[in-house]
């Protein structure tokens, strides 16, 4: 069933939305009221200035309100961040988390952050440059200046983007020079530890002409019962003919509120696959933007979310076709348990002259309980000719015939439902076309289903 169309954004339960909106908005205060103490050291002036400006912008911007179209359907009660503050992990905690950073069997570089501080880096085999962002400023200042936080937060999250830019004194910079194909993925672990601790993961990936790289990021909490607040920003810049595969595996603890801002810039004949797996958190706002800046550019935007309890998954996307003969393939899949909610607002924007654009924007919700809510607001804005665009948003329950097929083979209905839901959620992962990453994600998704269905 199609639950909403571009012309008539709809909610499955608009009355609830209305009543939830009453009660005012949260705030970002406490530690965030005070200006961060930056160590400017030898950092270039543009960078320190950018942070300063970002802080001022953060203070100036209002909290998103319920009348903001870009926050439509969001449960504003969840936007109270006043209890969070910076927390410094101790040596034992850091050591333990380094120990617990498990991912792929093989990687070309490996970086571990705890509460935003880089604690370990095994960098730079296989021709990939992988450096702490601040260290990279010396050699790659010009590249970073071009891209650092530029155009982030366009879909409503500007205040969070500003906070991130002001707070992010540590991040990772991945750079691949012309023609270099990096053999194994770059792997980045982001941990948050301590009750009410914060993290501002920042990742900038740039590939030069005909280069290629995969980057896998893991977002995790040291302890599931600790609240936390994470505002992450990732930027992927694929220059002419290059290729980036990006996977973000969000497994924050169940009391973590998270904002994830992803921005992709794709050049001529370049291709980027961005995949975000939302397998944790209490609330997650995800904004993903792809700018297709050169003819032949391609962007695959994949998201898999498995929500339960009172979790809210708020997703806003933009597929921006600035040049002709560009393609974007979006696929968002949400499996909703308990009383969880999903919000999907997507826009395909085709600029004047961006003819022969192909853009697809399906969002699929699998409703696994009677109390879940799925809101979809797909949109098209087309100013060119010969364009193939489609959006389709569906919300459905598991088909009885599918369950019967399992049951007729001796599988219990409970396991049948779980396997069907796992199938629903892992299906887009095959698009990543990397066996090791696929295997890892499928295992993590399977574990998530074990956790939410136990």
């Amino acid at each position, binding site marked *: 069933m199609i639950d909403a169309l571009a012309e008539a954004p709809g909610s499955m339960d608009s009355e609830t939305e209305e009543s939830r909106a009453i009660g005012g908005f949260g705030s970002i205060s406490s530690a965030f009221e005070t200006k961060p103490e930056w160590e400017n050291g030898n950092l270039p002036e543009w960078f320190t200035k950018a942070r300063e400006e970002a802080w001022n912008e953060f203070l100036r911007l209002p909290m998103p309100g319920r009348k903001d179209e870009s926050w439509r359907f969001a449960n504003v009660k969840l936007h109270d961040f006043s209890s969070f503050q910076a927390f410094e992990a101790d040596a034992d905690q850091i050591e333990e988390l380094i120990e617990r950073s498990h991912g792929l069997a093989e990687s070309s570089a490996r970086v571990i952050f705890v509460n935003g501080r880089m604690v370990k880096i095994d960098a730079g085999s296989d021709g990939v440059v992988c450096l702490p962002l601040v260290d990279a400023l010396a050699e790659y200042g010009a590249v970073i200046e071009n891209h650092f936080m530029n155009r982030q937060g366009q879909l409503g999250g500007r205040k969070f983007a500003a906070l991130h830019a002001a707070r992010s004194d540590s991040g990772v910079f991945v750079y691949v020079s012309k023609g270099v194909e990096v053999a194994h993925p770059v792997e980045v672990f982001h941990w948050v530890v301590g009750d009410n601790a914060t993290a501002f993961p920042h990742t900038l990936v740039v590939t030069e002409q005909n280069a290629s790289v995969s980057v896998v990021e893991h977002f995790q909490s040291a302890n599931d019962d600790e609240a936390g607040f994470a505002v992450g920003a990732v930027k992927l810049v694929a220059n002419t003919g290059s290729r980036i595969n990006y996977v973000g595996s969000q497994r924050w603890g169940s009391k973590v509120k998270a904002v994830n801002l992803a921005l992709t810039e794709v050049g001529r004949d370049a291709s980027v696959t961005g995949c975000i797996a939302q397998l944790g958190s209490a609330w997650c706002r995800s904004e993903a933007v792809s700018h297709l800046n050169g003819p032949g550019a391609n962007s695959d935007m994949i998201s898999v979310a498995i929500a339960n309890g009172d979790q809210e998954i708020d997703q806003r996307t933009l597929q921006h076709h600035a040049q002709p003969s560009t393609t974007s393939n979006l696929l968002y899949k949400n499996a909703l348990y308990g009383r969880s909610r999903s919000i999907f607002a997507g826009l395909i924007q085709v600029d004047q002259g961006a003819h022969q654009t192909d853009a697809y924007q399906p969002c699929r919700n699998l409703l696994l309980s009677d109390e879940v809510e799925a809101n979809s607001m797909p949109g098209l804005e087309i100013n060119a000719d010969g364009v193939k665009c489609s959006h389709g948003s569906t919300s459905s329950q598991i088909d009885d015939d599918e369950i019967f*097929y399992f*049951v007729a083979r*001796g599988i219990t209905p409970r396991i049948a439902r779980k*396997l069907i839901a796992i199938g*629903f959620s892992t299906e887009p992962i095959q698009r990543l076309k990397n066996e090791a990453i696929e295997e890892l994600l499928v295992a993590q998704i399977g574990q998530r289903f074990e956790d939410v269905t136990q």
Partner: protein
Amino acid sequence: MEAQTQSQQMKLEIKDLHARIDGQEILKGLSLDIPKGEVHAIMGPNGSGKSTLSKVLAGHDDYEVTGGEVLMDGVNLLEMPADERSRAGLFMAFQYPVEIPGVSNANFIRAALQARLPNGEELDAVDFYKALYAKMDELEIDRKFTARSVNEGYSGGEKKRNEILQMAMLEPFYCVLDETDSGLDIDALKIVAKGVNAMRSPYRGFLVITHYQRLLDYIEPDHVHVMVNGRIVRSGGKGLALELEEKGYDWVRDELAVTA
């Protein structure tokens, strides 16, 4: 004496079965015995209730049994939920196998086998794949199908071969094949029949439901039954199938009209 009683019970016994869907009675007192070791074919015109029979046996929720009983080796089948029936040794090959996106064939069959193991016991992956590949080779199914989603995008023949593959892996005691020949070309039909024939054994009973006699050229039945309007109206040897093919179902209907 006791042994004899037991052997008498080694059958799928359908007694005066009545079933309906959406308030409409489809099975109107159907009786049939399928002893282990035998292949029984049910033929019948469209709308006679053939597929309803297979779904009622498999335990589909949409159908309500309003009378009669079904015993599998003496155990009341109708009291069991569908998954338990399967684990107890009943298999139904679907006329329209269901597509399950995102669930690989291997994982599906593995889950079905795992469901048959006692709690805490894990299926051995190496043995599983060895057995799976061997059966796939027999059924001329490309090994790539282990990783493909169950039935998704398969041709008619591939879907039916996949049903037989599941049957071969689960090694049931009683197999109900619901119009397994529908949508098959002759080559696919031969492969499917070969797979079924390979499973014929003194320890296994088959109920082959079909509209056409053609399938029975390849899976030779011990008994043929004609089903009309929710009942078995005639039973005989394999010659009955040929007679039906020649004279058409009107012949049985006409005879019924005469005797009525």
